[in-house]
């Protein structure tokens, strides 16, 4: 079911004229005068909406106010409020859920309600539409309604069809809709211009080309129009997609509107409070309740409003904004305590209400961490959180293996609680050192054996006498990601006379044409 609020802005404006009476009646009071709702633009005020009298006087939507003034010098103006209109429309969409399980916004001035299998509750579709129009008439809102199997068809009928149109599921949709203008397809204005120039004015014209009986001329026209809109992916720019949506051949997802309830707790007090200490007590109770409420919704409060209703009819509101989503009762109480300085209790406060008007998702966390940790120890998550908060996220990590032969690339670091990346096959590297230096350190070879191995070398000022060697293990550079001048490495596991075990490598081999005599480096330390 589509509900079109044909004059939403004007209706709202009439509401604001007499809010206590639910708005002035159409054509009465201020509405009897020609009035336009204007919006300020770079070229001066432009008309956003026009009431009936204004329409009769010649003012049109989209006109500049100056032009309208020349037509009707005594025209009245009022500022338009698009944001407020949208807000109002959201409320109407929620309210419309009385006729169906869910509804979607159709900005700027429509609401779509899904009434599948719900019409019989109101006595049939005809009675349902009557009920809708009556309900909105009581609220003094102009509506046009229609029921159709698809949202597109319902929208088209509501805007351009007869009042209270009902299109049954078994009826031939395109026959009933053929007389509607192409604007019923919810298209952009430039696309409408194109279609008008092509001579396609009715839905029937377009449908006949898109899916009519094939003869020679029809096929050529179909090809042409397919080609014309080939690259238009957005439905509102492609009349063929819109037509298919209207006929239900292509799905059209709608975004249902879901009400969000701001957590609200309140205390009605038997005896009006006149003293600050009692108010503090009530406040801390309220904060506890609020924390419980927020915890159930997994939310943290960003903005809190504390309302104090006094016996003598005064309301005091204190607002509080928090830097991050918070769910700590003590924290909230302490912050409000500062705000309550110098509050006037009058003859006493009878109701205190705390409302979280802005909340953000906040995952459950361990409450009262210190005390629980004293007793049972912390969980791994809490431990990681504390370490990360103090030391920084890049300092608490887990080493994971990475498929590469280069020793320093074969290990990567990732956040400690992330799942381990699945390797195609476990990458088994034999005899790797327990610890790897961040940067391989050059060693000075003092005496080399005839086969080129260092017999004696100096590292960090100490001379090491090599006693046992195993190697070489040749690790070639990764040619697919490194330059061709990168030298290969020959790794040796060595042990010196005192038992120190190291992993050293020769960077390149003599005569490989990639530099001079190869250097030796120490990269790893064995246990």
């Amino acid at each position: 079911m589509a509900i079109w609020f044909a004059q939403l802005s004007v209706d709202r404006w009439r509401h604001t004229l007499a809010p206590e009476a639910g708005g002035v009646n159409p054509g009465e009071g201020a509405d009897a005068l020609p009035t336009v709702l204007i919006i300020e633009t770079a070229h001066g005020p432009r008309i956003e909406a026009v009431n009936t009298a204004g329409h009769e006087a010649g003012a049109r939507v989209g006109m500049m106010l100056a032009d309208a003034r020349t037509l009707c010098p005594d025209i009245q103006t009022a500022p338009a409020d698009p944001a407020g209109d949208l807000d109002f429309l959201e409320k109407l969409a929620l309210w419309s859920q009385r006729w169906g399980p869910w509804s979607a916004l159709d900005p700027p001035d429509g609401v779509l309600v899904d009434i599948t299998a719900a019409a019989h509750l109101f006595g049939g579709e005809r009675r349902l539409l009557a009920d809708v129009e009556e309900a909105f008439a009581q609220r003094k809102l102009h509506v046009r309604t229609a029921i159709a199997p698809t949202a597109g068809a319902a929208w088209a009928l509501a805007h351009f069809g007869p009042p209270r149109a009902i299109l049954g599921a078994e009826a031939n949709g395109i026959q009933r809709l053929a007389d509607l203008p192409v604007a019923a397809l919810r298209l952009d204005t430039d696309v409408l211009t194109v279609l008008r120039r092509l001579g396609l004015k009715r839905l029937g014209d377009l449908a006949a080309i898109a899916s009519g009986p094939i003869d020679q001329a029809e096929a050529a026209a179909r090809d042409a129009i397919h080609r014309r809109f080939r690259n238009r992916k957005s439905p509102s720019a492609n009349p063929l997609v819109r037509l298919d949506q209207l006929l239900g051949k292509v799905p059209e997802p709608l975004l249902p509107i879901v009400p969000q309830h701001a957590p609200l707790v309140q205390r009605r007090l038997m005896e009006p409070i006149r003293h600050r200490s009692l108010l503090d007590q009530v406040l801390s109770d309220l904060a506890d309740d609020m924390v419980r409420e927020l915890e159930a919704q997994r939310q943290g409060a960003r903005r809190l409003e504390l309302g104090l209703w006094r016996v003598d009819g005064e309301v005091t509101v204190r607002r509080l904004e928090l830097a991050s989503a918070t769910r700590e009762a003590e924290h909230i109480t302490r912050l409000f305590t500062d705000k309550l300085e110098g509050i006037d209790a009058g003859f006493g406060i009878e109701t205190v209400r705390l409302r979280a008007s802005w909340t953000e998702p906040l995952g459950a966390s361990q409450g009262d961490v210190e005390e629980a940790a004293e007793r049972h120890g912390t969980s791994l998550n809490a431990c990681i959180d504390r370490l990360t908060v103090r030391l920084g996220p890049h300092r608490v990590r887990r080493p994971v293996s990475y498929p590469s032969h280069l020793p320093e690339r074969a290990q990567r670091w990732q956040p400690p609680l992330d799942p381990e990346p699945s390797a195609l096959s476990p990458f088994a590297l034999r005899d790797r050192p327990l610890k790897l230096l961040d940067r391989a350190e050059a060693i000075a070879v003092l005496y080399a054996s005839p086969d080129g191995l260092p017999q004696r070398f100096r590292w960090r000022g100490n001379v090491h006498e090599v006693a046992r060697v195993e190697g070489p293990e040749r690790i070639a550079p990764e040619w697919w990601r490194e330059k061709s001048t990168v030298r290969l490495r020959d790794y040796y596991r060595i042990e010196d006379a005192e038992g120190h075990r190291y992993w050293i490598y020769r960077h390149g081999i003599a005569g490989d044409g990639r530099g001079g005599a190869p250097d030796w480096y120490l990269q790893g330390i064995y246990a």
Partner: protein
Amino acid sequence: MSDTQTSSGANALQSLSVPFQSKVTASTRLSADDIAALGKTREGRWQPGLTDQPLHSEIFASASDGSGAGLALALARDAIRVAGENSDPLTDAHDRRQVLWVQDTRSIQRSGRPYTHGLPAELRDRLIHVEAKAPEDALFALEEGLRCRDLVCVIGEIIGNPRALDFTASRRLSLTAEKHEVPLWLIRLDAAPELSSARMRWQASCAPSLRPLWNLNAPGTPAWKAELFRARSHAPGEWILSNDDGRLHTRKRYKAPVAANTQGLGDLVRPTVGRSLAAYARA
């Protein structure tokens, strides 16, 4: 006649066997008194595989070799193994708790980071590494790790003798470890053994590795010379420790007469029988 005799003999055997078996089981499951008595006979000597592992040990080692980290890992694995054997097999079939390895930046510069391919296979995917900028941060991380019930042990590496790591700090660590029963092995690189409340303090250095079976010129299974110079419940001593086949072994300090049944196998681990090796070393 003979039939009845044999049957009666068999009966007697069967009737005998029941108390005999029960006696065996009684001897395998020692009571607390027996353990205490055995402990006395062992003269309070430390040996691998003890059940009363201390919860805070310090290992002093040089930063330019891997003996400190190697010995700490070996001791930690020994403790994990012992704990796994003594725990109830039904409750905790497979311990997958994490190991926290805390290093300060200078010790990373001097002695490198743990390398996942060089770690023991059972710890390879259970390691969480913390890089602390200053010793104070490292101590904070150690303490937080000790408070965490989901960690199997904490290994720390702190270089030198920072002012933050005084007796008070080490006492804090000891108390936290004992309160939450998470063991800590703190590797002190290039540090002087100052006042500390660690329950066991080791001086570690590298020892020539065991000769492998096939390539005699290659470095073999790592071995460390470990000197226990202060311990609350054990007498001081000196051992050559190696972590062959996943278990911690002691080895004779110097060339010892090869046992008869291990001849021809090279310098492999001698089975420890009879009196303790530590006592031997002291003698």
